[in-house]
């Protein structure tokens, strides 16, 4: 299960809505206790995809490395990655799957007409052939 606190969630939604109609991306940082991942900090990162960003995103590994360093320095952990699907549901697409890694939770935010609509979290496998849905809890406003 992945739980996102209010401050982190607001940052994720704000980033997703601000980047609409493009895809946004970022890192989720927090702590893990047993099966529960608590996200307490969301770090928006630049979408580095060089083509049209309405349907694609790419994280620079060095940006992720920097986010991991910040998390370690704060005694926290890099837990997952978030990105948005503009005017599209929050599913884990073929492109998402083929460019994923099995180590992190992947939260997808659906943004429709510029406003957040719904979200889901996924756990891809190492072969990049399937992604299991993960229970996601976010503060409902």
């Amino acid at each position: 299960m992945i739980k996102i606190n209010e401050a982190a969630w607001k940052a994720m939604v704000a980033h997703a809505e601000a980047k609409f109609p493009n895809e946004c991306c970022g890192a989720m940082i927090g702590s893990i206790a047993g099966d529960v991942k608590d996200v307490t900090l969301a770090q928006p990162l630049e979408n580095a995809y060089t083509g049209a960003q309405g349907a694609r995103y790419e994280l620079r590994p060095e940006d992720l490395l920097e986010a991991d360093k910040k998390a370690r320095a704060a005694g926290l952990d890099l837990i997952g990655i978030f990105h948005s699907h503009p005017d599209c549901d929050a599913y884990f697409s073929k492109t998402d799957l083929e460019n994923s890694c099995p180590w992190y939770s992947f939260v997808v935010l659906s943004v429709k007409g510029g406003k957040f609509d719904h979200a889901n979290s996924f756990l891809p496998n190492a072969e990049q052939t399937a992604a299991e849905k993960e229970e996601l809890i976010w503060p409902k406003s």
Partner: protein
Amino acid sequence: MAKVLIPTPLRQFADKHDSVDLAGATVAEVLASLTQKFPDLRKQLFNDEGKMRSFVNVYLNDDDIRYLKKDATPVAAGDTLSIVPSIAGGV
């Protein structure tokens, strides 16, 4: 000895260590030391053919080893190796 930083989700395969000091003169040797010490990490980092998984990047200090000498990149005492995934996607 070089320090290898273990990403959070991989610590379960590394006796919960967040970093580990390992011997090796090159990146390949340090990674071999890593997977020898923690065999369960091998499957996470390498495929069945023994090649590094496509989403795995290794940084020597702040530099991507792909732009150095790849896994033949020399490693000196005090260097830090980081394991960072490639991530992208889209609708």
